[in-house]
Protein backbone atom coordinates (compact mmCIF):
# COMPACT_ATOMS: atom_id res chain seq x y z
CA UNK A 1 0.00 0.00 0.00
CA UNK A 2 2.71 2.43 1.01
CA UNK A 3 4.40 2.34 -2.38
CA UNK A 4 1.52 4.16 -4.05
CA UNK A 5 -0.55 7.16 -3.05
CA UNK A 6 -4.24 6.81 -3.89
CA UNK A 7 -5.59 9.64 -1.75
CA UNK A 8 -7.08 12.65 -3.48
CA UNK A 9 -7.97 16.11 -2.26
CA UNK A 10 -11.38 17.30 -3.31
CA UNK A 11 -11.66 21.03 -2.50
CA UNK A 12 -10.04 20.59 0.90
CA UNK A 13 -11.53 17.20 1.75
CA UNK A 14 -8.99 14.38 1.78
CA UNK A 15 -10.36 11.08 0.42
CA UNK A 16 -8.35 7.89 1.02
CA UNK A 17 -8.99 6.92 -2.57
CA UNK A 18 -10.99 8.39 -5.46
CA UNK A 19 -13.77 5.79 -5.37
CA UNK A 20 -17.20 6.82 -4.19
CA UNK A 21 -20.74 5.79 -5.05
CA UNK A 22 -23.33 7.52 -7.21
CA UNK A 23 -26.27 8.97 -5.36
CA UNK A 24 -29.38 6.81 -5.38
CA UNK A 25 -27.61 3.53 -6.07
CA UNK A 26 -26.32 2.84 -2.57
CA UNK A 27 -28.97 4.13 -0.15
CA UNK A 28 -26.99 5.45 2.81
CA UNK A 29 -24.69 2.44 2.72
CA UNK A 30 -26.53 0.25 5.20
CA UNK A 31 -27.77 -2.37 2.73
CA UNK A 32 -24.38 -2.65 1.00
CA UNK A 33 -22.44 -2.82 4.27
CA UNK A 34 -23.22 -6.53 4.30
CA UNK A 35 -21.10 -6.94 1.15
CA UNK A 36 -18.67 -4.03 1.16
CA UNK A 37 -16.36 -2.76 3.91
CA UNK A 38 -17.43 0.89 3.78
CA UNK A 39 -14.14 1.83 5.48
CA UNK A 40 -12.43 1.14 2.16
CA UNK A 41 -14.41 3.69 0.15
CA UNK A 42 -13.23 7.23 -0.50
CA UNK A 43 -16.71 8.52 0.25
CA UNK A 44 -20.31 7.45 0.43
CA UNK A 45 -22.70 9.72 -1.45
CA UNK A 46 -26.17 9.27 -0.02
CA UNK A 47 -29.45 8.98 -1.87
CA UNK A 48 -31.00 12.42 -2.39
CA UNK A 49 -32.75 13.89 0.62
CA UNK A 50 -35.33 16.68 0.64
CA UNK A 51 -36.73 18.95 3.36
CA UNK A 52 -39.79 16.70 3.75
CA UNK A 53 -40.47 13.01 2.93
CA UNK A 54 -41.17 12.30 -0.75
CA UNK A 55 -43.37 9.41 -1.88
CA UNK A 56 -41.64 9.02 -5.27
CA UNK A 57 -43.20 7.83 -8.51
CA UNK A 58 -45.64 4.96 -9.12
CA UNK A 59 -44.21 1.54 -10.11
CA UNK A 60 -42.76 0.12 -12.30
CA UNK A 61 -39.85 2.37 -11.51
CA UNK A 62 -37.08 0.49 -13.34
CA UNK A 63 -36.58 -1.19 -16.69
CA UNK A 64 -33.59 -2.97 -18.12
CA UNK A 65 -32.28 -1.81 -21.49
CA UNK A 66 -29.38 -3.03 -23.62
CA UNK A 67 -26.23 -2.51 -21.54
CA UNK A 68 -28.02 -0.33 -19.06
CA UNK A 69 -31.20 0.46 -17.22
CA UNK A 70 -33.82 3.16 -16.88
CA UNK A 71 -35.05 4.38 -13.52
CA UNK A 72 -37.84 6.69 -12.52
CA UNK A 73 -37.82 6.27 -8.76
CA UNK A 74 -38.69 9.94 -8.40
CA UNK A 75 -36.36 10.72 -5.48
CA UNK A 76 -38.38 8.91 -2.86
CA UNK A 77 -36.74 9.83 0.44
CA UNK A 78 -37.61 9.89 4.15
CA UNK A 79 -36.99 13.63 4.59
CA UNK A 80 -34.11 15.40 6.28
CA UNK A 81 -35.26 14.83 9.89
CA UNK A 82 -35.22 11.03 9.73
CA UNK A 83 -32.09 11.19 7.59
CA UNK A 84 -30.17 13.20 10.21
CA UNK A 85 -31.36 10.97 13.03
CA UNK A 86 -30.70 7.63 11.32
CA UNK A 87 -28.48 7.77 8.25
CA UNK A 88 -25.76 10.22 9.29
CA UNK A 89 -25.05 8.43 12.63
CA UNK A 90 -24.80 5.13 10.74
CA UNK A 91 -22.18 6.51 8.34
CA UNK A 92 -20.29 8.29 11.12
CA UNK A 93 -19.23 4.91 12.49
CA UNK A 94 -17.15 4.32 9.37
CA UNK A 95 -13.86 5.82 8.27
CA UNK A 96 -15.18 7.24 5.02
CA UNK A 97 -16.24 10.70 3.93
CA UNK A 98 -19.95 11.53 3.98
CA UNK A 99 -21.39 13.39 1.03
CA UNK A 100 -25.10 14.18 1.27
CA UNK A 101 -27.05 14.55 -1.95
CA UNK A 102 -29.66 17.29 -1.64
CA UNK A 103 -32.83 17.51 -3.73
CA UNK A 104 -35.71 19.95 -3.81
CA UNK A 105 -38.66 21.26 -5.78
CA UNK A 106 -37.90 24.94 -5.17
CA UNK A 107 -34.89 27.02 -4.16
CA UNK A 108 -36.23 27.30 -0.64
CA UNK A 109 -36.50 23.48 -0.38
CA UNK A 110 -32.81 23.14 -1.25
CA UNK A 111 -31.82 25.94 1.13
CA UNK A 112 -33.78 24.40 4.00
CA UNK A 113 -31.88 21.11 3.66
CA UNK A 114 -28.51 22.83 3.24
CA UNK A 115 -29.16 24.92 6.35
CA UNK A 116 -30.28 21.89 8.34
CA UNK A 117 -27.04 20.08 7.40
CA UNK A 118 -24.80 23.00 8.39
CA UNK A 119 -24.13 21.63 11.88
CA UNK A 120 -24.17 17.96 10.94
CA UNK A 121 -20.95 15.91 10.65
CA UNK A 122 -21.14 15.88 6.86
CA UNK A 123 -18.06 16.42 4.67
CA UNK A 124 -19.59 17.74 1.46
CA UNK A 125 -22.94 18.49 -0.14
CA UNK A 126 -23.92 17.37 -3.62
CA UNK A 127 -26.77 19.38 -5.08
CA UNK A 128 -29.02 17.49 -7.46
CA UNK A 129 -30.18 19.94 -10.10
CA UNK A 130 -30.36 17.23 -12.71
CA UNK A 131 -32.89 14.53 -11.82
CA UNK A 132 -34.97 13.85 -14.94
CA UNK A 133 -37.75 12.12 -13.01
CA UNK A 134 -39.39 14.86 -11.01
CA UNK A 135 -41.58 17.47 -12.60
CA UNK A 136 -40.67 20.46 -10.49
CA UNK A 137 -37.18 21.43 -9.37
CA UNK A 138 -34.58 18.83 -10.21
CA UNK A 139 -33.65 19.13 -13.81
CA UNK A 140 -35.55 22.38 -14.32
CA UNK A 141 -32.69 24.08 -12.48
CA UNK A 142 -30.03 22.20 -14.38
CA UNK A 143 -30.92 23.05 -17.96
CA UNK A 144 -30.72 26.84 -17.82
CA UNK A 145 -27.30 28.41 -17.13
CA UNK A 146 -28.84 31.46 -15.42
CA UNK A 147 -30.75 29.23 -12.98
CA UNK A 148 -27.69 27.04 -12.42
CA UNK A 149 -25.60 30.06 -11.44
CA UNK A 150 -28.38 31.53 -9.30
CA UNK A 151 -29.14 28.43 -7.26
CA UNK A 152 -25.43 27.68 -6.85
CA UNK A 153 -24.74 31.11 -5.42
CA UNK A 154 -27.86 30.98 -3.20
CA UNK A 155 -26.67 27.67 -1.75
CA UNK A 156 -23.05 28.80 -1.40
CA UNK A 157 -24.19 31.74 0.74
CA UNK A 158 -25.45 29.45 3.50
CA UNK A 159 -23.59 26.15 3.01
CA UNK A 160 -21.01 25.28 5.65
CA UNK A 161 -19.56 22.40 3.64
CA UNK A 162 -17.99 22.42 0.16
CA UNK A 163 -20.69 22.32 -2.52
CA UNK A 164 -20.71 19.90 -5.46
CA UNK A 165 -23.18 20.74 -8.23
CA UNK A 166 -24.39 17.64 -10.08
CA UNK A 167 -24.83 18.30 -13.77
CA UNK A 168 -27.30 16.90 -16.26
CA UNK A 169 -26.20 15.46 -19.60
CA UNK A 170 -29.62 16.33 -21.03
CA UNK A 171 -28.38 19.68 -22.39
CA UNK A 172 -26.91 20.91 -25.66
CA UNK A 173 -23.62 21.98 -24.11
CA UNK A 174 -22.68 20.69 -20.66
CA UNK A 175 -19.69 23.05 -20.44
CA UNK A 176 -22.09 26.00 -20.44
CA UNK A 177 -23.77 24.61 -17.30
CA UNK A 178 -20.37 23.79 -15.78
CA UNK A 179 -19.15 27.37 -16.27
CA UNK A 180 -22.40 28.71 -14.81
CA UNK A 181 -22.02 26.56 -11.69
CA UNK A 182 -18.39 27.65 -11.33
CA UNK A 183 -19.43 31.28 -11.72
CA UNK A 184 -22.01 30.73 -8.97
CA UNK A 185 -19.22 29.57 -6.66
CA UNK A 186 -19.45 25.79 -6.90
CA UNK A 187 -16.46 24.10 -5.22
CA UNK A 188 -16.72 20.98 -7.33
CA UNK A 189 -18.85 19.46 -10.11
CA UNK A 190 -20.13 15.94 -10.51
CA UNK A 191 -21.22 14.53 -13.84
CA UNK A 192 -23.09 12.96 -15.43
CA UNK A 193 -26.57 12.33 -14.06
CA UNK A 194 -28.74 9.95 -16.12
CA UNK A 195 -29.80 10.46 -19.74
CA UNK A 196 -33.53 10.64 -20.31
CA UNK A 197 -34.78 7.53 -22.07
CA UNK A 198 -37.89 5.49 -22.76
CA UNK A 199 -38.77 1.83 -23.12
CA UNK A 200 -41.93 0.46 -24.69
CA UNK A 201 -43.44 -2.95 -23.95
CA UNK A 202 -44.34 -4.20 -27.43
CA UNK A 203 -46.62 -6.99 -26.15
CA UNK A 204 -48.77 -4.63 -24.10
CA UNK A 205 -48.09 -1.65 -26.42
CA UNK A 206 -47.48 0.61 -23.48
CA UNK A 207 -44.62 2.24 -21.59
CA UNK A 208 -42.63 -0.04 -19.30
CA UNK A 209 -42.16 2.70 -16.71
CA UNK A 210 -45.19 4.19 -15.00
CA UNK A 211 -43.47 7.57 -15.48
CA UNK A 212 -43.11 6.86 -19.26
CA UNK A 213 -39.55 8.24 -19.27
CA UNK A 214 -36.66 7.40 -17.00
CA UNK A 215 -32.99 8.14 -16.51
CA UNK A 216 -30.65 5.83 -18.37
CA UNK A 217 -27.54 4.58 -16.61
CA UNK A 218 -25.11 1.69 -16.88
CA UNK A 219 -22.13 0.73 -19.05
CA UNK A 220 -23.86 1.83 -22.27
CA UNK A 221 -23.61 5.51 -21.26
CA UNK A 222 -19.97 5.39 -20.17
CA UNK A 223 -18.44 6.80 -23.40
CA UNK A 224 -20.85 9.74 -23.25
CA UNK A 225 -19.85 10.41 -19.66
CA UNK A 226 -16.13 10.21 -20.48
CA UNK A 227 -16.59 12.69 -23.34
CA UNK A 228 -18.53 15.12 -21.12
CA UNK A 229 -16.00 14.89 -18.28
CA UNK A 230 -13.20 15.56 -20.78
CA UNK A 231 -15.00 18.60 -22.25
CA UNK A 232 -15.86 19.95 -18.81
CA UNK A 233 -12.29 19.51 -17.57
CA UNK A 234 -11.18 21.83 -20.40
CA UNK A 235 -13.83 24.40 -19.48
CA UNK A 236 -13.54 24.87 -15.71
CA UNK A 237 -10.89 24.95 -12.97
CA UNK A 238 -12.87 23.29 -10.15
CA UNK A 239 -12.30 19.56 -9.55
CA UNK A 240 -14.65 17.04 -11.14
CA UNK A 241 -16.24 13.83 -9.91
CA UNK A 242 -16.76 11.56 -12.91
CA UNK A 243 -19.59 9.07 -13.13
CA UNK A 244 -21.73 7.34 -15.71
CA UNK A 245 -21.48 3.63 -16.41
CA UNK A 246 -18.37 2.88 -14.36
CA UNK A 247 -18.35 -0.88 -13.79
CA UNK A 248 -14.62 -1.69 -13.66
CA UNK A 249 -11.33 -0.15 -12.58
CA UNK A 250 -10.54 0.37 -16.27
CA UNK A 251 -13.69 2.49 -16.65
CA UNK A 252 -12.71 4.50 -13.57
CA UNK A 253 -9.17 5.11 -14.87
CA UNK A 254 -10.56 6.30 -18.22
CA UNK A 255 -12.67 8.80 -16.33
CA UNK A 256 -9.68 9.98 -14.29
CA UNK A 257 -7.53 10.34 -17.41
CA UNK A 258 -10.36 12.39 -18.95
CA UNK A 259 -10.08 14.84 -16.04
CA UNK A 260 -11.98 13.51 -13.03
CA UNK A 261 -10.31 13.79 -9.61
CA UNK A 262 -12.71 11.22 -8.16
CA UNK A 263 -15.17 8.73 -9.58
CA UNK A 264 -18.53 7.26 -8.59
CA UNK A 265 -19.77 3.73 -9.09
CA UNK A 266 -23.54 3.67 -9.62
CA UNK A 267 -25.60 1.11 -11.50
CA UNK A 268 -22.75 -1.43 -11.32
CA UNK A 269 -23.55 -1.82 -7.61
CA UNK A 270 -26.78 -3.54 -8.71
CA UNK A 271 -24.87 -5.88 -11.00
CA UNK A 272 -22.30 -6.87 -8.38
CA UNK A 273 -22.64 -5.52 -4.85
CA UNK A 274 -18.83 -5.68 -4.43
CA UNK A 275 -18.02 -3.54 -7.50
CA UNK A 276 -16.69 -0.58 -5.49
CA UNK A 277 -14.01 -2.68 -3.77
CA UNK A 278 -13.02 -4.29 -7.07
CA UNK A 279 -12.59 -0.80 -8.57
CA UNK A 280 -10.46 0.31 -5.59
CA UNK A 281 -8.21 -2.73 -5.94
CA UNK A 282 -8.07 -2.50 -9.73
CA UNK A 283 -6.91 1.12 -9.61
CA UNK A 284 -4.08 0.07 -7.26
CA UNK A 285 -3.08 -2.73 -9.65
CA UNK A 286 -3.06 -0.33 -12.59
CA UNK A 287 -0.86 2.12 -10.68
CA UNK A 288 1.64 -0.63 -9.84
CA UNK A 289 1.61 -1.98 -13.37
CA UNK A 290 2.48 1.41 -14.85
CA UNK A 291 4.62 2.66 -11.96
CA UNK A 292 2.26 5.47 -11.06
CA UNK A 293 3.36 6.70 -7.60
CA UNK A 294 0.55 9.19 -7.01
CA UNK A 295 -2.90 8.98 -8.53
CA UNK A 296 -2.81 12.75 -9.14
CA UNK A 297 -0.43 12.01 -12.01
CA UNK A 298 -3.37 10.42 -13.83
CA UNK A 299 -5.95 13.19 -13.45
CA UNK A 300 -6.56 14.65 -16.91
CA UNK A 301 -3.46 12.88 -18.24
CA UNK A 302 -4.99 11.86 -21.56
CA UNK A 303 -2.97 13.46 -24.35
CA UNK A 304 -2.80 13.80 -28.15
CA UNK A 305 -1.51 10.70 -29.90
Amino acid at each position, binding site marked *: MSDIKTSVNLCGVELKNPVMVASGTFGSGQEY*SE*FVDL*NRLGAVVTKGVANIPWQGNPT*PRVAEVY*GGMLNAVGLQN*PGIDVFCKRDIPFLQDYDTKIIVNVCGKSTSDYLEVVERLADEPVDMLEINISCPNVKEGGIAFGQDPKLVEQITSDIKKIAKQPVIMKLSPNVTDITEMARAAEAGGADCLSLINTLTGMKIDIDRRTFVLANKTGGMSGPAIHPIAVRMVYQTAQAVKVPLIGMGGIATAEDAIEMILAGATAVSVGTANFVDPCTTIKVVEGIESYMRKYGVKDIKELVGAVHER
Partner: protein
Amino acid sequence: LRQPNLQGDINMATKFEEMAVVVSQKEIATDIFDLTIQTKDIAKAAKAGQFISLYCNDGTKLLPRPISLCGIDREAGTLRLVYRVTGENTGTKEFSKMVAGDQVRVLGPLGNGFTLGDKKAFCIGGGIGIPPMLQLAKELNCEKTAVLGYRNELFLLDDFENVCDTIIATEDGSAGTKGNVIDAIKANGANADVIYACGPTPMLRALKAYAEENHMECYVSMEEHMACGIGACLACVCKTKEKDHHTNVNNTRICKEGPVFNAKEVEL
Protein backbone atom coordinates in the same frame (compact mmCIF):
# COMPACT_ATOMS: atom_id res chain seq x y z
CA LEU B 1 -14.80 2.30 14.05
CA ARG B 2 -17.42 -0.11 12.83
CA GLN B 3 -15.95 -3.36 11.57
CA PRO B 4 -17.49 -4.94 8.54
CA ASN B 5 -20.00 -7.72 8.98
CA LEU B 6 -19.44 -9.25 5.62
CA GLN B 7 -20.79 -12.20 3.73
CA GLY B 8 -18.83 -15.39 4.22
CA ASP B 9 -19.46 -15.76 7.92
CA ILE B 10 -22.55 -17.93 8.05
CA ASN B 11 -23.14 -17.02 11.70
CA MET B 12 -23.22 -13.30 11.00
CA ALA B 13 -24.21 -12.72 7.41
CA THR B 14 -27.74 -13.15 6.17
CA LYS B 15 -27.02 -12.88 2.43
CA PHE B 16 -24.39 -14.48 0.25
CA GLU B 17 -23.11 -13.87 -3.25
CA GLU B 18 -21.73 -17.00 -4.83
CA MET B 19 -21.28 -19.04 -7.99
CA ALA B 20 -23.83 -21.83 -7.85
CA VAL B 21 -23.58 -24.98 -9.96
CA VAL B 22 -26.47 -26.38 -11.95
CA VAL B 23 -27.41 -29.86 -10.75
CA SER B 24 -30.24 -30.49 -13.19
CA GLN B 25 -32.81 -28.72 -15.33
CA LYS B 26 -35.84 -29.77 -17.31
CA GLU B 27 -38.87 -28.17 -18.93
CA ILE B 28 -41.94 -29.32 -16.99
CA ALA B 29 -44.58 -27.40 -18.98
CA THR B 30 -44.50 -24.99 -21.89
CA ASP B 31 -41.88 -22.35 -20.97
CA ILE B 32 -41.86 -23.52 -17.33
CA PHE B 33 -38.45 -24.79 -16.23
CA ASP B 34 -37.47 -26.78 -13.16
CA LEU B 35 -33.89 -25.95 -12.14
CA THR B 36 -31.88 -27.32 -9.21
CA ILE B 37 -28.68 -25.55 -8.19
CA GLN B 38 -25.98 -26.41 -5.70
CA THR B 39 -25.10 -23.51 -3.39
CA LYS B 40 -22.44 -23.10 -0.74
CA ASP B 41 -24.30 -21.13 1.92
CA ILE B 42 -27.53 -19.78 0.41
CA ALA B 43 -29.67 -22.92 0.75
CA LYS B 44 -28.55 -23.40 4.36
CA ALA B 45 -29.76 -19.90 5.24
CA ALA B 46 -32.95 -19.90 3.12
CA LYS B 47 -36.55 -19.86 4.33
CA ALA B 48 -39.81 -20.62 2.51
CA GLY B 49 -41.07 -17.48 0.78
CA GLN B 50 -37.67 -15.89 0.28
CA PHE B 51 -36.16 -15.38 -3.17
CA ILE B 52 -32.76 -15.23 -4.82
CA SER B 53 -31.26 -12.96 -7.47
CA LEU B 54 -29.91 -14.81 -10.49
CA TYR B 55 -27.44 -12.96 -12.72
CA CYS B 56 -27.09 -13.45 -16.48
CA ASN B 57 -23.78 -14.28 -18.13
CA ASP B 58 -24.77 -11.95 -20.98
CA GLY B 59 -23.13 -8.70 -19.87
CA THR B 60 -25.71 -6.55 -21.66
CA LYS B 61 -28.33 -7.80 -19.21
CA LEU B 62 -27.30 -6.05 -16.05
CA LEU B 63 -29.99 -6.59 -13.51
CA PRO B 64 -30.45 -9.73 -11.48
CA ARG B 65 -33.64 -11.77 -12.02
CA PRO B 66 -35.51 -12.32 -8.75
CA ILE B 67 -36.74 -15.93 -8.57
CA SER B 68 -38.71 -17.53 -5.76
CA LEU B 69 -37.65 -20.70 -3.98
CA CYS B 70 -39.75 -23.73 -4.90
CA GLY B 71 -37.66 -26.11 -2.84
CA ILE B 72 -34.92 -25.82 -0.21
CA ASP B 73 -32.72 -28.78 0.75
CA ARG B 74 -30.62 -27.37 3.57
CA GLU B 75 -28.70 -30.58 4.12
CA ALA B 76 -27.70 -31.02 0.50
CA GLY B 77 -27.32 -27.25 0.04
CA THR B 78 -29.51 -27.24 -3.05
CA LEU B 79 -32.29 -24.95 -4.19
CA ARG B 80 -35.08 -25.83 -6.58
CA LEU B 81 -36.27 -22.98 -8.79
CA VAL B 82 -39.32 -23.29 -11.00
CA TYR B 83 -39.60 -20.26 -13.27
CA ARG B 84 -41.16 -19.13 -16.51
CA VAL B 85 -39.23 -18.05 -19.59
CA THR B 86 -40.68 -14.62 -20.34
CA GLY B 87 -39.69 -14.37 -24.00
CA GLU B 88 -36.95 -14.55 -26.62
CA ASN B 89 -33.66 -12.81 -25.77
CA THR B 90 -34.56 -12.61 -22.08
CA GLY B 91 -32.50 -13.49 -19.03
CA THR B 92 -34.84 -16.36 -18.21
CA LYS B 93 -34.30 -17.70 -21.76
CA GLU B 94 -30.55 -17.74 -21.01
CA PHE B 95 -31.15 -19.59 -17.72
CA SER B 96 -33.34 -22.16 -19.49
CA LYS B 97 -30.38 -23.23 -21.63
CA MET B 98 -28.21 -24.09 -18.62
CA VAL B 99 -27.31 -27.74 -18.12
CA ALA B 100 -25.77 -29.76 -15.27
CA GLY B 101 -22.33 -28.44 -14.39
CA ASP B 102 -22.92 -24.88 -15.62
CA GLN B 103 -22.23 -22.04 -13.19
CA VAL B 104 -24.57 -19.18 -12.37
CA ARG B 105 -23.98 -16.21 -10.08
CA VAL B 106 -26.52 -15.97 -7.27
CA LEU B 107 -27.25 -13.51 -4.46
CA GLY B 108 -29.44 -14.57 -1.59
CA PRO B 109 -31.43 -15.53 0.26
CA LEU B 110 -33.32 -12.24 -0.07
CA GLY B 111 -36.37 -10.77 1.59
CA ASN B 112 -38.36 -12.19 4.46
CA GLY B 113 -40.14 -15.46 4.02
CA PHE B 114 -43.47 -16.69 5.32
CA THR B 115 -43.95 -16.82 9.07
CA LEU B 116 -44.99 -20.38 9.82
CA GLY B 117 -48.06 -20.62 12.04
CA ASP B 118 -50.19 -23.52 13.23
CA LYS B 119 -53.62 -22.39 12.06
CA LYS B 120 -55.43 -24.40 9.41
CA ALA B 121 -54.01 -23.03 6.19
CA PHE B 122 -54.64 -22.52 2.50
CA CYS B 123 -51.45 -22.40 0.40
CA ILE B 124 -52.69 -20.64 -2.70
CA GLY B 125 -50.66 -20.23 -5.87
CA GLY B 126 -51.68 -18.74 -9.19
CA GLY B 127 -49.66 -19.38 -12.36
CA ILE B 128 -45.96 -18.80 -11.80
CA GLY B 129 -46.89 -17.93 -8.19
CA ILE B 130 -47.43 -21.67 -7.58
CA PRO B 131 -43.77 -22.75 -7.06
CA PRO B 132 -42.99 -20.91 -3.79
CA MET B 133 -46.09 -22.42 -2.17
CA LEU B 134 -44.56 -25.91 -2.40
CA GLN B 135 -41.75 -25.28 0.08
CA LEU B 136 -44.23 -23.50 2.36
CA ALA B 137 -46.66 -26.43 2.19
CA LYS B 138 -43.80 -28.79 3.09
CA GLU B 139 -42.77 -26.71 6.10
CA LEU B 140 -46.20 -25.92 7.54
CA ASN B 141 -46.74 -28.37 10.38
CA CYS B 142 -50.52 -28.08 10.55
CA GLU B 143 -53.73 -28.84 8.68
CA LYS B 144 -53.35 -27.43 5.19
CA THR B 145 -54.79 -27.45 1.69
CA ALA B 146 -52.96 -26.36 -1.45
CA VAL B 147 -55.13 -24.41 -3.88
CA LEU B 148 -53.54 -24.04 -7.30
CA GLY B 149 -54.80 -21.90 -10.16
CA TYR B 150 -53.63 -22.67 -13.69
CA ARG B 151 -54.44 -21.24 -17.09
CA ASN B 152 -54.67 -24.73 -18.69
CA GLU B 153 -51.41 -26.64 -18.49
CA LEU B 154 -50.68 -28.25 -15.09
CA PHE B 155 -47.27 -28.38 -13.40
CA LEU B 156 -45.97 -29.38 -9.94
CA LEU B 157 -49.32 -31.03 -9.17
CA ASP B 158 -47.75 -34.37 -8.12
CA ASP B 159 -45.32 -32.54 -5.84
CA PHE B 160 -48.17 -30.83 -4.02
CA GLU B 161 -50.29 -33.99 -3.82
CA ASN B 162 -47.37 -35.73 -2.09
CA VAL B 163 -47.38 -33.03 0.60
CA CYS B 164 -51.02 -32.19 1.33
CA ASP B 165 -54.60 -32.12 0.08
CA THR B 166 -54.57 -30.26 -3.20
CA ILE B 167 -57.41 -28.69 -5.16
CA ILE B 168 -57.04 -26.96 -8.49
CA ALA B 169 -58.74 -24.56 -10.83
CA THR B 170 -58.09 -24.01 -14.52
CA GLU B 171 -59.28 -21.06 -16.59
CA ASP B 172 -60.55 -23.33 -19.35
CA GLY B 173 -61.98 -26.02 -17.07
CA SER B 174 -59.70 -28.68 -18.55
CA ALA B 175 -58.85 -29.88 -15.02
CA GLY B 176 -60.34 -29.26 -11.58
CA THR B 177 -62.80 -26.42 -11.13
CA LYS B 178 -63.37 -24.10 -14.10
CA GLY B 179 -62.49 -20.61 -12.93
CA ASN B 180 -60.11 -19.21 -10.35
CA VAL B 181 -58.74 -20.34 -6.98
CA ILE B 182 -61.70 -18.90 -5.04
CA ASP B 183 -64.05 -20.83 -7.31
CA ALA B 184 -62.07 -23.99 -6.49
CA ILE B 185 -62.29 -23.33 -2.74
CA LYS B 186 -66.07 -22.86 -2.96
CA ALA B 187 -66.64 -25.83 -5.27
CA ASN B 188 -64.72 -28.12 -2.92
CA GLY B 189 -66.27 -26.69 0.26
CA ALA B 190 -62.76 -26.20 1.62
CA ASN B 191 -62.05 -23.98 4.61
CA ALA B 192 -59.11 -22.61 6.56
CA ASP B 193 -58.19 -19.91 9.09
CA VAL B 194 -55.24 -18.42 7.27
CA ILE B 195 -54.33 -17.79 3.63
CA TYR B 196 -50.80 -17.79 2.25
CA ALA B 197 -50.78 -16.70 -1.38
CA CYS B 198 -48.55 -15.90 -4.32
CA GLY B 199 -49.72 -15.00 -7.82
CA PRO B 200 -50.95 -12.22 -10.06
CA THR B 201 -52.11 -9.01 -8.36
CA PRO B 202 -55.81 -9.45 -9.31
CA MET B 203 -55.75 -12.85 -7.56
CA LEU B 204 -54.10 -11.38 -4.46
CA ARG B 205 -56.62 -8.54 -4.44
CA ALA B 206 -59.52 -11.00 -4.63
CA LEU B 207 -58.03 -13.14 -1.86
CA LYS B 208 -57.55 -10.11 0.38
CA ALA B 209 -61.26 -9.31 0.00
CA TYR B 210 -62.21 -12.99 0.45
CA ALA B 211 -60.15 -13.18 3.66
CA GLU B 212 -61.78 -10.03 5.04
CA GLU B 213 -65.29 -11.33 4.29
CA ASN B 214 -64.49 -14.64 5.94
CA HIS B 215 -62.49 -13.24 8.88
CA MET B 216 -59.30 -15.02 7.86
CA GLU B 217 -55.71 -13.91 8.16
CA CYS B 218 -54.09 -13.37 4.76
CA TYR B 219 -50.42 -13.20 3.79
CA VAL B 220 -49.48 -12.33 0.23
CA SER B 221 -46.16 -12.59 -1.61
CA MET B 222 -45.73 -9.58 -3.88
CA GLU B 223 -43.80 -8.98 -7.08
CA GLU B 224 -42.40 -5.84 -8.71
CA HIS B 225 -39.61 -4.81 -11.11
CA MET B 226 -36.42 -4.85 -9.03
CA ALA B 227 -32.89 -3.54 -9.45
CA CYS B 228 -30.62 -4.06 -6.43
CA GLY B 229 -32.72 -6.72 -4.67
CA ILE B 230 -31.39 -5.71 -1.24
CA GLY B 231 -33.33 -2.58 -0.33
CA ALA B 232 -31.03 0.18 -1.52
CA CYS B 233 -32.52 1.47 -4.78
CA LEU B 234 -36.21 1.86 -3.84
CA ALA B 235 -37.38 0.52 -7.22
CA CYS B 236 -39.67 -2.26 -5.96
CA VAL B 237 -42.03 -0.59 -3.54
CA CYS B 238 -45.69 -1.17 -2.87
CA LYS B 239 -48.15 1.16 -1.19
CA THR B 240 -48.84 0.64 2.47
CA LYS B 241 -51.74 1.56 4.73
CA GLU B 242 -49.49 2.98 7.43
CA LYS B 243 -46.31 4.97 7.11
CA ASP B 244 -43.38 2.55 6.65
CA HIS B 245 -40.71 2.61 9.36
CA HIS B 246 -37.83 2.73 6.89
CA THR B 247 -39.09 4.88 4.03
CA ASN B 248 -41.06 7.27 6.28
CA VAL B 249 -43.74 7.42 3.56
CA ASN B 250 -46.67 5.16 2.66
CA ASN B 251 -44.75 2.60 0.71
CA THR B 252 -42.47 -0.26 1.60
CA ARG B 253 -39.62 -2.17 -0.04
CA ILE B 254 -40.84 -5.48 -1.48
CA CYS B 255 -37.31 -6.94 -1.70
CA LYS B 256 -36.40 -6.08 1.88
CA GLU B 257 -39.53 -5.88 4.06
CA GLY B 258 -41.35 -8.31 1.75
CA PRO B 259 -41.97 -10.06 -0.49
CA VAL B 260 -44.48 -11.50 2.01
CA PHE B 261 -46.83 -9.02 3.66
CA ASN B 262 -49.95 -9.19 5.76
CA ALA B 263 -52.58 -8.27 3.15
CA LYS B 264 -54.10 -5.76 5.58
CA GLU B 265 -50.90 -3.72 5.53
CA VAL B 266 -50.51 -3.27 1.77
CA GLU B 267 -52.63 -1.75 -0.99
CA LEU B 268 -53.27 -4.16 -3.83
